[in-house]
């Protein structure tokens, strides 16, 4: 494929370029959230920070897990563990589309040769009680990003509105690097003394997790963990706002939200184990959504959530 000369050489170079690009554009470059999540949106830097009136601009890589997508590392495009690149800017700047296109150029996509399109795609996360309008962005017919103007999160209207960009890093990188199978993709520079492919790093873990996700994970234990996380979330939020020890007003929105994340991931694992029936599925999603909503309710009462005493 014809790419311009500034074409990146590796998966990590694409990530580094995105980091640099969004840092230059003024985003706080955060680190991944240290919990298992299904998508970059779950990072509190997106979910919670999209709420309330405070301005915000953050970019980060988020390792994401979708247990049902595991294919033992054999499918060229499907992984149970993959990376998303996430940008959230609040309020959404008027030139967000141009900023986004600039990021594609930064990773070596020559706008003069490719066909970039914004195709309607309304985003909804039933587990987060969130929705927004936007597009999937196509590059030569391939979806390379999700572009969303958040309208609601955790049942709360977003004012101001955040603009969210999500890049599926592996897919985007495979396209830019001209690789057909994800496991063949150079992770670092192929000229490095120790060149590593994506497969060198992740083939074995894909196998291990696929086996565990589908056949081994202890469903009883997971079910119990789900219930515990659900109970803990509510218990955390039930504490009075003023901490009796310090006398300060400390609403524990983030610790509670951790439990919501946990419940959501456990639900995904249970789903992969095939122990959730179609009717139960809706009920579980509803239970996670209820947690997300409680956390959102709590967050908007905190300073970061725009609360002014």
């Amino acid at each position: 494929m014809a790419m311009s000369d500034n074409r990146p050489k590796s998966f990590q170079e694409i990530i580094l370029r995105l980091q640099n690009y969004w840092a230059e554009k003024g985003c706080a470059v955060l680190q991944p959230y240290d919990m298992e999540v299904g998508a970059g949106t779950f990072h509190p830097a997106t979910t919670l920070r999209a709420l309330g009136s405070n301005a915000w601009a953050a970019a980060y890589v988020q390792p994401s897990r979708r247990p049902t997508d595991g294919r033992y590392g054999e499918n060229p495009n499907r992984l149970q563990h993959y990376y998303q690149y996430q940008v959230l800017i609040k309020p959404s700047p008027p030139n967000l589309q141009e900023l986004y296109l600039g990021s594609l150029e930064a990773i070596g996509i020559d706008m003069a040769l490719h066909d970039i399109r914004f195709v309607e795609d309304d985003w909804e996360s039933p587990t987060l009680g969130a929705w927004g309008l936007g597009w999937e962005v196509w590059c030569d017919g391939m979806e390379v990003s999700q572009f969303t103007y958040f309208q609601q999160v955790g049942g709360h209207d977003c004012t101001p509105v955040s603009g969210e960009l999500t890049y599926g890093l592996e897919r985007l990188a495979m396209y830019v690097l001209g690789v057909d199978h994800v496991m063949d993709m150079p992770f670092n520079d192929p000229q490095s003394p120790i060149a590593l492919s994506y497969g060198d790093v992740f083939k074995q873990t894909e196998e291990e997790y696929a086996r565990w996700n589908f056949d081994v994970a202890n469903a009883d234990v997971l079910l119990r963990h789900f219930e515990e996380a659900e109970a803990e979330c509510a218990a955390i939020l039930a504490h009075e706002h003023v901490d009796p020890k310090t006398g300060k007003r400390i609403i524990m929105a983030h610790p509670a939200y951790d439990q919501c994340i946990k419940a959501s991931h456990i639900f995904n694992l249970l789903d992969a184990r095939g122990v959730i029936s179609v009717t139960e599925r809706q009920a579980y999603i509803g239970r996670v959504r209820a947690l997300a909503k409680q956390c959102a309710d709590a967050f908007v009462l905190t300073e970061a959530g725009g609360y002014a005493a």
Partner: protein
Amino acid sequence: MPDLLIELFSEEIPARMQGKAAADLQKLVTDGLVDAGLTYAGAAAFATPRRLCLGVEGLLARSPDTREERKGPKVGAPDKAIEGFLRGAGVTRDQLEERETPKGAVYFATIEHEGREAGEIVAEVLEVAIRNFPWPKSMRWGGAGQPGEGSLRWVRPLHSILCILSDEAGAQVVPMVVDGIRSGDTTQGHRFMASGEITVTGFDDYAAKLKAAHVILDPQERADHIWEDAKNAAFAQGLEIVEDAGLLREVAGLVEWPVVLMGDIAEEFIPLPPEVLQTSMKEHQKFFSVRNPQTGRIEKFVTVANRETADHGATILAGNQKVLAARLADAKFFWENDLRTVRSVGLAGMGKPLANVTFHRELGSQSDRIARIAKLAGEVAPLVGALPDLSEEAARVAKADLSSEMVYEFPELQGVMGRYYALAAELPESVANACEAHYSPLGPSDDVPEEPVSVAVAFADKLDTLTGFWAIDEKPTGSKDPYALRRAALGVIRIILSNDLRLRLDRFIDSQLLKHEIAQHAGAAEAAELAALENTLDEIADHGVFGAAFHAVLQKLGLETPGDTDTVLGKVSAKMPGVSEDLLSFFHDRLKVHLREEGIRHDVIDACLAMPGNDDLILLVKRAEALAGFLKTDDGENLLQGFKRANNILSQAEEKDGVEYSFGADVKFAEDASEKALFAALDEAQAAIAPAMEGEDFAAAMSAMSALRAPIDAFFEAVQINTDNQVVRRNRLNLLARIRDICLGVADLTRIEG
């Protein structure tokens, strides 16, 4: 007279919304202008992915002055009333005029409305249109900022408003600010193939400058361009594009500068069923399929890019080809997995997991449903000329593809895949065809299945669905029909009519309803009750309807008619007749709609619906068609008048006398020649009508009836019915009763209007 140009420039508008949005913009603005007194000569609206545009030609430069006269209170009315009137009319007391009216002296005010400049009106109307635009889904964006901003909703962020009025003297911006967006006379060209602002002076200038900046404004022009180029590219290689008007419209809404590119489908994917290739390419990639007319295979694709490139689209095409290969690799994977499944466990085996799929909470699993459909398909098979076993077998596998990986991925391929998988499982061709055809007809213009096995399964599928939802009282209401029951009923009707199926719908409705009732009550009923209901099910085949069958069973078992609605038997027997009747009349309503579209008047249909055997739709339609044809003739029309006259006289006499005149009239009391002639004519007609009716030859029966027209007319001409001679009068009334009986035996002519 100035022209008006409006452009609302935004981020990408979903393709499916563009057409209606352009029409809405035109309607909102032109209606608003006209309401404010600004008439115009012509208007046209356009949409591209990034803009809505409206051009209005020959607008009045100024709305005309108007004067309005308003009637006020009486002279001498309390001051308070007069002051109120002055306030409302905006005039002073000395401007009031006193006028004499029949009710005394009254104040009148004349209010002058001065005309307004077009620009002022346009700004108001456009702001209202923007703020109230009927997008199916709209959003907010940004908006932390200035007071008055962030309140606007648009389909995607709105960036600029171009609004100019232009005449010979030049163009002028109509000044306005909506949510911080100030109107101007500039726009932008193609996102990638143009740069900078474009200043425009009027519609023609705008359209020309856009084209120079690589934007084709008119969606029809874009669609035509795509279609022509795609057709030519395919033709050059001896291929043809698979037509798809919906896809063409959508693709034309995704690009401002369409560039058609034709690419290859890798050899390994060409053996996939063409429907799979087509669906995958259309749904995921918005590609057109390119077919080899010789083989019917899909061999290439056409994609439409939004730009020209230095490499003539080579990079774009390569990328699209790669994405397609990944998609088709998925499809091939599903196809091969599914084939492996059907070859090892058969098609029925593939459908096993449907036992765990709920069809409807109250109607059980898909497997329960399939079992019911299979049984019914077997029962109806002899009536449609199909083998019962084969029909049952077909019904049992017809929905198995719902468990396939391919249909999970592409639900719209249900049935189509079933057919392929049935063939792969080496099932008979008629079974394979039924897998696909039993969903038909889906719409009023969709083909109706004709192969007997397909007919049996299609009929059973639809009737089971209808009776099921009737049993649980989930009927369509108003515009809500979530289970597409109207479509199912029309489907049954069309299957019956186009295959000339002679069957009593009642019997099938009753037995299938009863099956649902049994399933509903299986948990709560006592064994004896269930046995009685199962027994009734068997009897319906003989008795035709539930009521008679149920009573036969009760009698046989020596049971009382259950009056107690607390028992299952009581509940079911109380509910069945009403629900069944309701469903039959639902069928009749759909049939009426269907026949009305075929040009048969509703009163004609009503006249036939009132006759016995109206659950035999073939009989019903035959009668209605004959009657409609008959009434179009002079004889028919006159006979109808004759009948009505006879019927009126008779009804009045019967009401007055308190008796029914149905005792045979006797020719020996006939006095007048016309009376005797009528006797003879009636004898003759009856002799002809009886066998015609027997043979369901309604046209012949009606034609025989029309021979009565002249004698009836002559009779009424010559004879006074209500004579003083009571014997003669009674005899004449009885003669009229013969006319009535003959006519009503063909159709209920009392229901015919006019």
